[in-house]
């Protein structure tokens, strides 16, 4: 009984960690430029496809090189998005930007089918289907890899944000882009960097969950919706909120589908989300939403 519970919580936390990585991307971009990137999930998919379809299957790269190369490629792509999508729409109404990212999502999914074909791809990852024993319960080792990866990323991010000049520039831009620009911070470049970093986080999530499922053009759709829900649950714009929201949402899903009903899990999870939106729109960690023009 307890073992089942531990297993459920661990799996939930690991899936939640993937949500958290995507949710962090939403949060960072939102903080920097007040844009919700609805294509964040498709960047997950793109990361997985670049890694599996090109670097692993085509070039046969070793795994670590595969991961690094993929992150670099996706980082560049993310910076390109800042110039191509965000920059032209920076003064447009919020609705336009939302619609543009939805268009991007549609384009990316279909481009992925053109490049990598409609058949889903397989990816063994570093561990394949190895299982480990933990507290008497058996789970895929990949789940632990995901949790470890989230912890490492958080450590890196903390160092980056708190202890480097680049991180300070990023935080300053997020806080007040205009003032940051007046202080001599090249905000346009910093924003491009934030997009690159958010894209890399999403792509990393794709690389991490690929061994647990197939790599397909629509793999990001469900993930992005859940990560978005996690962002709102934790409080939009809050970095700890995105983390905790992701983990909580993962556990709710995992526990709900075991203890209540696997068929109705989406109904329950998103019902909870709608309730949160209605009664506490600022989420767990968020501040009360002020009017954004």
């Amino acid at each position: 009984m307890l073992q089942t519970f531990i297993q459920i919580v661990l799996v939930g936390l690991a899936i939640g960690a993937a949500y958290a990585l995507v949710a962090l991307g939403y949060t960072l971009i939102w903080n920097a430029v007040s844009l919700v990137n609805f294509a964040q999930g498709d960047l997950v998919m793109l990361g997985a496809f670049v890694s599996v379809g090109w670097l692993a299957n085509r070039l046969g790269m070793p795994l670590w090189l595969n991961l690094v190369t993929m992150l670099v490629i996706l980082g560049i792509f993310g910076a390109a998005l800042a110039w191509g999508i965000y920059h032209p729409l920076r003064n447009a109404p919020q609705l336009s930007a939302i619609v543009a990212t939805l268009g991007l999502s549609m384009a990316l999914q279909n481009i992925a089918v053109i490049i990598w074909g409609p058949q889903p791809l397989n990816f063994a990852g570093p561990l394949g289907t190895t299982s480990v024993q933990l507290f008497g319960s058996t789970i895929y080792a990949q789940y632990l890899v995901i949790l470890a990866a989230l912890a490492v990323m958080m450590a890196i991010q903390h160092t980056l944000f708190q202890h480097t000049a680049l991180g300070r520039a990023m935080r300053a831009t997020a806080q007040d882009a205009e003032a940051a620009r007046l202080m001599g911070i090249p905000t346009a470049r910093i924003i491009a960097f934030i997009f690159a970093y958010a894209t890399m986080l999403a792509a990393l999530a794709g690389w991490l969950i690929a061994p647990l499922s197939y790599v397909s053009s629509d793999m990001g759709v469900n993930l992005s919706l859940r990560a978005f829900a996690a962002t709102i649950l934790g409080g939009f714009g809050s970095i700890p909120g995105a983390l905790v929201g992701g983990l909580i949402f993962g556990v709710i899903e995992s526990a709900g589908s075991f203890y209540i009903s696997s068929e109705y899990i989406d109904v329950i999870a998103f019902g909870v989300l709608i309730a949160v939106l209605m009664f506490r729109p600022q989420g767990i960690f968020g501040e009360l939403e002020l009017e954004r023009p």
Partner: protein
Amino acid sequence: MTVDGNTLTMRTLALLVIGVAILCGLVLPQFLSVYYLQVADVTLINILLVLGLNFILGFGGQMSLAQCAFFGIGAYGFTLLQAAGMPVPVAAIGAIAISAAVGMALGWPTLRLKGHYLALCTLAFALIVERLLVNWEGLTNGANGITAIPGIGLAGENDKMLWVLLAIVACAYLLQVWIANGPLGLRIRALRDDPLAAQAIGVDISRLKIMLFVISAAYGGLAGICYVLLRGYISPDVFSWQSTFSYLAMAVVGGLGSPLGAVLGAILYTFVPELLRFMQEYYFAVFGVMVILVITFFPAGLSGLVLSAFRSLRRREKSYARSDVTHHERAA
């Protein structure tokens, strides 16, 4: 954003729309095979859906992504009411009423939400509706769907359904133009452009937002009924939450807040790719990019381009009499 009726009186427009509808009804069956007639019918249903989305998103500026849910509620509502023994008109009115009521039930609690919050909330709602359609097997027969729905006995008769749908879409189109050009339309656009100012001059924006949800949902429900009449069978995958993005893409590329845009967008998204079947994925990849380009560079969409071309043509005719019109004015 332009409203099509600006340059035309309502009566001219009504005659024009009815004329085009009759022309389509007469001409299309001459040129289209049975299969393409069905595509044309589906295009008409999509026009209805996008017209519905136009009310809330195009005129009202409220980011609702629940149109596919109302589509499904209308279709299943009609089917189940008819199965319960109601005559077609009663079942149809009932289904539209259910859609509208659900629209109100979604609109009222989400009044405070804006932008991406509203987008996510309505998207979550669409997802919940889809899951209910799949999993509530006692009511909906689950993923297998419901087959052999009697409807009005025209299921599969694509040529006759074309007339039915043309009539419905023409009415829905004119109703939208009439509402948009009336005092209600002005209030709706005031809500979109500046909710605070609208409220200050006495527009009850809460009531207005709920009303927009209700009208949108009613259009969606009507489209659902049309789908049942056309196909004679339904299954939940038609009403998947992802499909809501297709309607959004149609609305944007056609031109948000323009009835003509709804028509152009739906044709471009539904009918044209069937003609260009060999380039399916390419087409939709291009369409996605087009959504981005249109929203960035031509927020008024295709209909905006068509209408401004039409207007500058008319102005050029006039400008022969007025030699003092500068090039700049003409371009505007």
